[in-house]
């Protein structure tokens, strides 16, 4: 599974992209977030407030309940500010 980070989530984690094996017990986006928070203090800090974390699975906006699977591209980013 490829995970992408953007904007201040990217800066806080210090990574723009990583590839991980789908962890055991993770089948939904929210579970993936919980698992990532446990990877280290920079992850916990960047992903602490779920209300400002947007999730996209395979380039589509997704909720915490959305299914995730090995091979998916999951992106985590703050609310968008283009335009």
């Amino acid at each position, binding site marked *: 599974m490829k995970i*992408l980070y*953007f*904007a*201040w989530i990217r*800066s806080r984690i210090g990574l723009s992209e990583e590839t991980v094996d789908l962890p055991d017990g993770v089948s939904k986006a929210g579970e993936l977030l919980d698992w990532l928070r446990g990877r280290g203090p920079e992850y916990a800090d960047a992903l602490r407030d779920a209300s400002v974390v947007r999730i*996209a699975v395979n*380039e*589509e*906006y997704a909720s915490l309940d959305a299914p995730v699977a090995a091979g998916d591209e999951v*992106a985590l*980013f*703050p*609310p*968008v*500010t*283009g*335009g």
Partner: protein
Amino acid sequence: MIRIQKEDFDVAAEIASVVGTDRSVGAVTVFIGLVRDINGGESIADMTLEHYPGMTEKMLARIEAEAMSRWPLSASLIIHRYGHLQPGDRIVLVISASAHRQAAFEASEFLVDWLKAKAPFWKRETTPEGARWVAARDNDAAAADRWTGEPRPIVV
């Protein structure tokens, strides 16, 4: 049509390409978003726009398709820049062409509202206190939401 690019764009050339030789077009509306030299009371020295390549194209294409399905448009265009920008620089261009003005105005406003709420771009500004990520504005979400009710009837 949608384009995501680092380079500036030529507004007159883009208008000409949207209208083309279609003589049924009576109304063209254009929105140009510019980098301001002040935001939230702080002076802005420059700005960097980050985006999510792939998802950005997908979202903008979907937003444009939604506008084409809601209004009788001859053509439309969204160009969004990314990368390093300075105050006065153009960020985004939206054009809608239609037989009559109501559709052209509503479509351009819709395109801007939805791209601001949905297209994965993030702005980082440099102020005298250092660089900061721009926070999303609540009223941008509200502006996007007002298009979910019943549409105003289109008079042609």
